[in-house]
């Protein structure tokens, strides 16, 4: 019904078809300028993902911002501790502080942090503590500079964070308002760097820059490789057909599909993510294949002078079902990505699926309309191009040899394939699941270089945050004890408490204190009650400050010591670090005083002393003002998910052995951690997608062939291929990262096409001739050539990706091309061998004896 309606529409009203498609393309094309690129890996998780919400909440609670890390490196004798380097550092830091989008008050650099020290001249008396800028001005002489070095090396929070342990690198930590600004800001910084003419080297690093830069380069990449892919396909088809006339139609179908699909995606308001940016490159090769089929067959059947409509109708009715099925299977492969709980991957999968179905539709309506609109003269020209290759061509001979080989050595081949599968299974077990957005750049990219240099000097530029929360309902407990105490004296507190409204416990209890304080003054009759309540409230408030208690601090300190001993963690910074440092300075500065205050009051007063500095608010990056949540900042030298997973395992092991104090919860935040979360979600999701796609494609195959056996057979080549490719990835040690994960499900839909064509033709030929040997001979002529050619078109269609400057594109291009090629080979070699081993061919191909006889008598 639908089929004939579509075909009639396209042949009878070609102009309507052209205009309709044209309008759609224009409409969609108009959406494209409002494109928004999004490369934020955080968006790999849905906005309401628990880990992501927690990460955002931690950033908010502790005032943590995404950071650009600028490295100043001088490998000379004095490292960065020379006047020139330090002056440049200060120049840069001053310039950066003035930049829009930089959170200036939180910027960390040698010239913007405090030094806490002893005043050396003061030998007797109570001892003098000094809070001063570490480097308000660059000292004139080397002695002054050396003093800075000594001071930095004394302060654990600064040493190896602001200046590397080897003294050769200094860091400027630049917190920014929005991650998406980091490319712009890093360019501004680069401009400032270019204005310097010193002997130091400068490196801009940090995950936010990597992510934002990737977005910018991705945009350029898209603008280059999509047209390049188009050009590549054009050249390829020219090579095969040598006729502009023939090539135009598929090119129009491809362009139309790409523009409408991208317009649809952008028009719906979706951002273009790494995967979505590859849509044009995926769609183009897939879109041209069907039109090539139609044109080839039409050119075969059409004789000049005949009614082209009749020939077309015949071609279309013949091709409609296989084209529909190959399109649907490909679409299903992509659409199965919707099972992965990663929104950008879902959007990618569904839109490519849409694009494939659209390409099918456009092929069915546009190509016939195109042919009908050709003048008879041009139509005649179609004939001049011999589309079918000669059997004696190199490819022809190779294929026919392959056919004979495959049948003759069927047993050996099967054993070989079983071995390959076993080997692949082993390889798959070796797969290293790992990713790191910085590695999305090639290894000579400035960001990769900066990453290497910075992590060579510093303990790490990747951040993970370990958050400990103490739970408990302080407010209810306090109110209970207050009411009890008031009841003893027959006083009802409710009227007094009605006006107290503090949001959190600190504010609430502060208000209570003010209230009771005032009442004790105003209401002299009940003074003792109000003072008692005041005491209760103050006590509750002090006791509520959990992370000032020795128990909590000791746990944190032990955990930090444990973490610092691990090779995966460069350095940890936390409240114990700060407390021990300030305590040491209060006690005279000797190293044996580097320890935790002995009780909560001492800790509170140590903190009060710290707060007399220039940057008292740095404290709140480590602990909340109610002292019920604290965060350890871990500096990791590797942003690999694998290494972060090791860190997670380390902490889990520690907590298992040293249980957390009562009512204390431990959680993770930080971009490096978020990357692990979405990777895990993706790996699990991909398995679901793969299974989903496998089952759906299998069901479709069974329906298409109306045979369970052939349906299963058709799944064989792609199963072997995917297993082999992933086994290979495991064996050669290539990390299983995002692009590789995404490939699995979608190749399933793409590579089954070969099996469909191959089995369809094999069965048709066998049903006609009833002889297996003859069937094999014939199959290795026409059909195998068509399959090989299509494999080449699709595989080569993806090769522009190989020239991409960004690694995920190269990965996708390389593996797609490999998968296409391998699955074509496996189809052609393995399927006949397997069928050779199935003795009852009649049953396999559903041939009834009498039917065969009848067909034979026709011949």
């Amino acid at each position: 019904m639908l089929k004939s309606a579509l075909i009639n529409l396209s042949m009878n009203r070609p102009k309507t078809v052209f205009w309709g498609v044209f309008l759609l393309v224009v409409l969609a094309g108009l959406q494209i300028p409002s494109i928004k690129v999004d490369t934020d890996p955080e968006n790999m998780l849905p906005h309401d993902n628990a880990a992501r919400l927690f990460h955002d909440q931690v950033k908010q609670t502790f005032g943590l911002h995404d950071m650009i890390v600028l490295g100043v490196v001088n490998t000379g004798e004095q490292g960065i501790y020379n006047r020139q380097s330090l002056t440049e550092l200060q120049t840069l830091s001053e310039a950066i502080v003035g930049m829009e989008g930089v959170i200036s008050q939180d910027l960390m650099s040698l010239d913007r942090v405090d030094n806490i020290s002893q005043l050396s001249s003061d030998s007797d008396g109570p001892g003098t503590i000094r809070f001063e800028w570490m480097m308000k001005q660059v000292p004139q002489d080397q002695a002054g500079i050396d003093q800075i070095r000594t001071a930095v090396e004394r302060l654990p929070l600064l040493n190896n964070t602001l200046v590397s342990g080897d003294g050769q690198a200094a860091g400027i930590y630049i917190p920014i308002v929005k991650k998406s600004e980091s490319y712009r800001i890093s360019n501004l910084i680069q401009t400032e760097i270019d204005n310097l003419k010193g002997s130091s080297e400068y490196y801009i690093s940090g995950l936010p820059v990597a992510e934002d830069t990737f977005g910018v380069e991705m945009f350029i990449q898209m603008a280059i490789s999509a047209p390049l892919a188009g050009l590549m396909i054009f050249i390829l088809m020219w090579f095969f057909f040598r006729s502009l006339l023939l090539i135009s139609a598929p090119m129009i179908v491809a362009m139309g599909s790409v523009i409408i699909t991208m317009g649809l995606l952008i028009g719906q308001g979706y951002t273009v993510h790494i995967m979505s940016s590859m849509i044009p490159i995926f769609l183009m090769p897939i879109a041209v294949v069907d039109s090539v089929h139609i044109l080839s067959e039409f050119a075969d059947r059409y004789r000049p002078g005949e009614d082209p409509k009749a020939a077309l109708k015949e071609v279309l009715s013949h091709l409609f079902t296989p084209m529909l099925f190959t399109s649907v299977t490909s679409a299903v492969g992509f659409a199965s990505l919707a099972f992965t709980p990663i929104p950008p991957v879902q959007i990618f999968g569904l839109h490519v699926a849409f694009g494939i179905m659209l390409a099918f539709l456009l092929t069915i309506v546009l190509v016939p309309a195109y042919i009908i609109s050709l003048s008879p003269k041009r139509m005649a020209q179609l004939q001049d191009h011999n589309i079918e290759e000669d059997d004696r061509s190199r490819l022809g001979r190779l294929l026919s040899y392959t056919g004979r080989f495959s049948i003759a050595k069927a047993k050996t081949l099967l054993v070989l394939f079983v071995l390959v599968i076993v080997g692949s299974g082993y390889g798959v077990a070796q797969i290293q699941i790992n990713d790191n957005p910085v590695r999305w750049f090639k290894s000579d990219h400035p960001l990769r270089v900066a990453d290497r240099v910075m992590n060579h000097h510093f303990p790490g530029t990747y951040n993970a945050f370990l958050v400990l929360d103490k739970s408990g309902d302080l407010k209810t407990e306090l109110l209970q004890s207050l009411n009890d105490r008031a009841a003893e004296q027959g006083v009802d507190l409710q009227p007094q408490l009605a006006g107290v409204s503090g949001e959190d416990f600190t504010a609430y209890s502060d208000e209570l204190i003010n209230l009771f304080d005032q009442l004790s003054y105003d209401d002299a009759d009940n003074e003792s009650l109000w003072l008692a309540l005041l005491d209760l409230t103050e006590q509750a408030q002090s006791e509520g400050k959990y992370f000032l208690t020795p128990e909590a601090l000791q746990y944190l300190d032990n955990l930090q010591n444990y973490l610092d001993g691990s090779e995966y963690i460069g350095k940890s910074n936390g409240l114990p670090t700060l407390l021990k440092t300030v305590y040491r300075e209060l006690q005279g500065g000797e190293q044996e005083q580097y320890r935790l205050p002995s009780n909560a009051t001492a800790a509170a007063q140590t903190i009060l002393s710290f707060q007399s500095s220039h940057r008292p608010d740095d404290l709140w990056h480590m602990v909340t003002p109610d002292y019920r949540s604290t965060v350890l900042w871990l500096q990791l030298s590797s942003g690999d998910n694998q290494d972060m997973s090791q860190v997670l395992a380390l902490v889990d092991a520690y907590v298992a052995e040293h249980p957390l104090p009562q009512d204390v919860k431990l959680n993770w935040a930080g971009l490096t951690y978020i990357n692990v979360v979405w990777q895990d979600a993706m790996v699990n999701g991909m398995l679901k997608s793969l299974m989903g796609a496998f089952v759906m494609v299998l069901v479709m195959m069974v329906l298409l062939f109306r045979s369970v056996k052939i349906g299963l057979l058709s799944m064989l080549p792609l199963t072997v291929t995917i297993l082999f490719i992933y086994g290979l990835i495991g064996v050669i040690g290539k990390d299983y990262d995002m692009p590789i994960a995404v490939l699995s499900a979608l190749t399933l839909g793409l590579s089954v096409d070969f099996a469909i064509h191959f089995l369809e033709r094999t069965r048709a030929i066998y049903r006609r001739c009833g002889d297996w040997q003859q069937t094999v001979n014939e199959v290795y002529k026409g059909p195998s050539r068509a399959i090989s050619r299509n494999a080449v078109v699709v595989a080569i269609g993806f090769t522009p990706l190989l020239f991409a400057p960004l690694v995920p594109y190269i990965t996708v291009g390389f593996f797609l091309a490999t998968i296409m090629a391998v699955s074509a080979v496996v189809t052609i070699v393995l399927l006949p061998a397997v069928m050779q081993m199935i003795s009852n061919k009649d049953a396999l191909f559903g041939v009834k004896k009498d039917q065969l006889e009848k067909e034979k008598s026709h011949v």
Partner: protein
Amino acid sequence: MFKHFLSIALAGVLGLTTAVQAEELTDVNEIVKKANVASYYRGDDGRSEARMLIEDAQGRKQQRQFTILRRDHADGGDQQFLVVFSRPADVRNTVFLVEKHAQGDDDRWLYLPGLDLVKRISAGDKRTSFVGSHFFYEDVSGRNLSDDNHRLLETNAEHYVLESSAKNAASVEFSRYQVWIEKSSMLPVKIEYYNANDKLYRRVEVLATETIQGFPTVTKSKVSDLLSGASTTMEFRFIRYDLGMETAVFSERSLRNPPRQWLKRPKQ
């Protein structure tokens, strides 16, 4: 009640007469001097209880309470301060002692009862945070007038508007600041600080004043960190002048043994 009313009425009359009588000042140094005395040197000594509410950029509030005792050697000259913390309870009886010198660096001591520790705090920089608030030490005890160059920008009906910049620019974080001095009380009621990029980043403002024992006195002021959006509000209560405190009240001995007599809240 009647007495209270009378004092307000009197203050009003007094305020009016000063406004009428006061000649318009044109010498910037004289304005600065008078403002300095008006804000930091009222009476020969004084006490007040401060309640500080620190509000961070997220709206989280913390409170601190302390009593300030002050004794002047001479108006505009040397002074002594004793700051004794009462809340939160875990910093109770933490004490700051300051010997402020009109010429030269101040002497500062700190006593931490939880560590039973007396420390001197190096003179150095006084533009550091006062116990984690947005007030600087200098805002509490006063900035040395001779550290800055002052310029009278404008004189309007109510205010003298001054602009000042540090003589030693490297010693401070501001490039310049503007002060609005209320003519009637000679109290600076608003100060705005600009950074090296000439961006307004910090504001100190008076939210309430009261006349106490005849002296116009700031009872509520606020410092806003305009970059982060955080602020600290300080309220002064139970203010008394001319109590007759001795210099011994401000000795190092008071660090460990705060003078109860003067810390006790006066009865109404």
